[in-house]
């Protein structure tokens, strides 16, 4: 199965971080959108439709943004798949372009969290896990403890993911944190859900990211050629109900998301040069890379500690700093990953450039549902 790729005409984002109340969901989205349009040299009038990913933005946030931006009247779709919302918006935009419905569409991922989320995110109150006392950090902590027992991995190896990603973001002007941290800082940080501490967890953040996607005729409308990066396909799967007493870190949902990515994009796992991985927690980067089949089972922690997933390593993961260091405004993250991979595939990522990056994968996982191995997982495959 092969749908036409979506060409990336322009990308832009706000620096992720904690902003005061007067920096609103709408204002951040407008800033990111204008930045993406400027990157493409495109006028607002060229845009056929708007796809907005967000979780906590409330009803018709996308239309509120459109009315502020000057895209009022256009078709606007609001997409919610928890932390995969931004990537789900990318997927829906890609489908609309490949279907011939539109030629130029704007995707915005946006979240204003710091004025409404405290202590971490959790499932919907109606979900049984929420009643049991589940918070996201707890699930990953249990994953980490089992991973260490099953694979002989160490706490230090898992913590190495945070050290690596914070080192990468030193070179990312859009990252919430832009300074290196030490292994000792990760190990000594305040415990959140043992064995994970504060620096194993992505922060609660505000921010927006925007991507202008086009068909080939859309590129012509914008006066652009087709030499830039493109989205080759976007996989989307949901967690399945788990049975039996199997490997807690089997990551079947990640495996299936990977299979979807390769099927839709006609790009293979061996082709991937760089990954933007949903490292909402340190251990998550490890087990998800393994689930995708990009790192051998049980080796992910050692790979992180040995620099194999660092810039200059065998397969660089999260050159942007990832969620741990770029920040994690949940609905914006998937769009921000595509911004980063666009810069990587253009060779324009500066001090965090992965040399010779020609094919890239962005992975998001959003939400949890009692009894399943996850809510939604998206896999965006891009090529130069």
């Amino acid at each position, binding site marked *: 199965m092969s749908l036409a790729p979506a060409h990336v005409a322009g990308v832009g984002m706000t620096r992720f971080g904690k902003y005061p109340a007067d920096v609103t969901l709408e204002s951040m989205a407008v800033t990111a959108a204008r930045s993406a349009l400027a990157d493409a040299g495109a006028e607002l009038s060229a845009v056929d439709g708007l796809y907005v990913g967000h979780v906590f933005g409330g009803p018709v946030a996308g239309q509120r943004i459109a009315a502020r931006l000057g895209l009022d009247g256009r078709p606007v779709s609001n997409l919610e798949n928890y932390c995969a919302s931004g990537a789900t918006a990318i997927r829906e935009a890609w489908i609309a372009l490949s279907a011939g419905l539109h030629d130029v569409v704007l995707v915005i991922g946006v979240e204003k969290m710091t004025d409404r989320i405290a202590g971490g995110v959790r499932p919907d109150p109606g979900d049984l896990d929420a009643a049991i006392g589940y918070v996201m*950090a707890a699930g990953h902590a249990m994953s980490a403890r089992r991973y260490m027992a099953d694979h002989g991995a160490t706490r230090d190896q898992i913590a190495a993911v945070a050290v690596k990603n914070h080192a990468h973001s030193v070179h990312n002007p859009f990252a919430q944190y832009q300074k290196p941290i030490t292994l000792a800082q990760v190990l000594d940080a305040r415990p*959140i859900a043992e064995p994970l501490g504060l620096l194993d967890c992505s922060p609660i953040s505000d921010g927006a990211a925007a991507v202008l996607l086009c068909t080939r005729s859309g590129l012509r409308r914008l006066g652009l050629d087709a030499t830039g990066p493109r989205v080759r396909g976007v996989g989307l799967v949901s967690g399945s*109900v788990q*049975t*039996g*007493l199997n490997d807690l870190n089997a990551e079947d949902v990640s495996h299936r998301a990977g299979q979807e990515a390769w099927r839709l994009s006609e790009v293979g796992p061996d082709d991937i040069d760089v990954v933007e991985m949903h490292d909402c927690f340190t251990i998550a980067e490890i087990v998800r890379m393994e689930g995708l089949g990009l790192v051998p089972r049980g080796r992910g922690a050692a790979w992180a500690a040995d620099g194999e997933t660092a810039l200059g390593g065998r397969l660089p993961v999260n050159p942007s700093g990832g969620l741990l260091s770029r920040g994690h405004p949940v609905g914006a993250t998937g769009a921000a990953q595509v911004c980063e991979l666009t810069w990587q595939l253009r060779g324009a990522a500066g001090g965090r450039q992965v040399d010779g990056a020609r094919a890239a994968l962005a992975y998001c996982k959003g939400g949890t549902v009692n009894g399943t191995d996850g809510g939604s997982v998206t896999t965006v495959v891009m090529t130069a």
Partner: protein
Amino acid sequence: MPPAETSSSTATRARPFRDGLLTLQPLRLLGSRCTACDCAVFPARTFCPACRAATVDPVELSPVGRVHSFTVVRQAPPDVEVPYTLAWIDLPTDRVRLMAQVVGVPPEEVTLDMPVELEPAPFGVDDTGSELVGFRFRTSAGVSS
């Protein structure tokens, strides 16, 4: 053995915090078991997630389990009191894994594969004043029974 919370004086006014999730006399979790492949799940579903058969029977699950993994939650949203121990509990008899809180020993003494037993957990009261009852597991190692 059932702890004091299930004494008959309160049991008459107590009910599960969600219908269909557990019974109180005796305390058991309610799952479903596939009539085709025998796979059990908790909570009960109307289909078998293993073989996709649509014929399942209700089943009372074994109250005896072991800790497959666990964490001590030290930070949670403001309305949640910390710390508490959250675990994946395996019920080997039924081959069911479920999430639950664990009590009975200090958090630092919980270990992987530690044996645990089902017990009721207070879950507030409903609009009519009836006690709502949830579930948790208590470590059974070293506890006389």
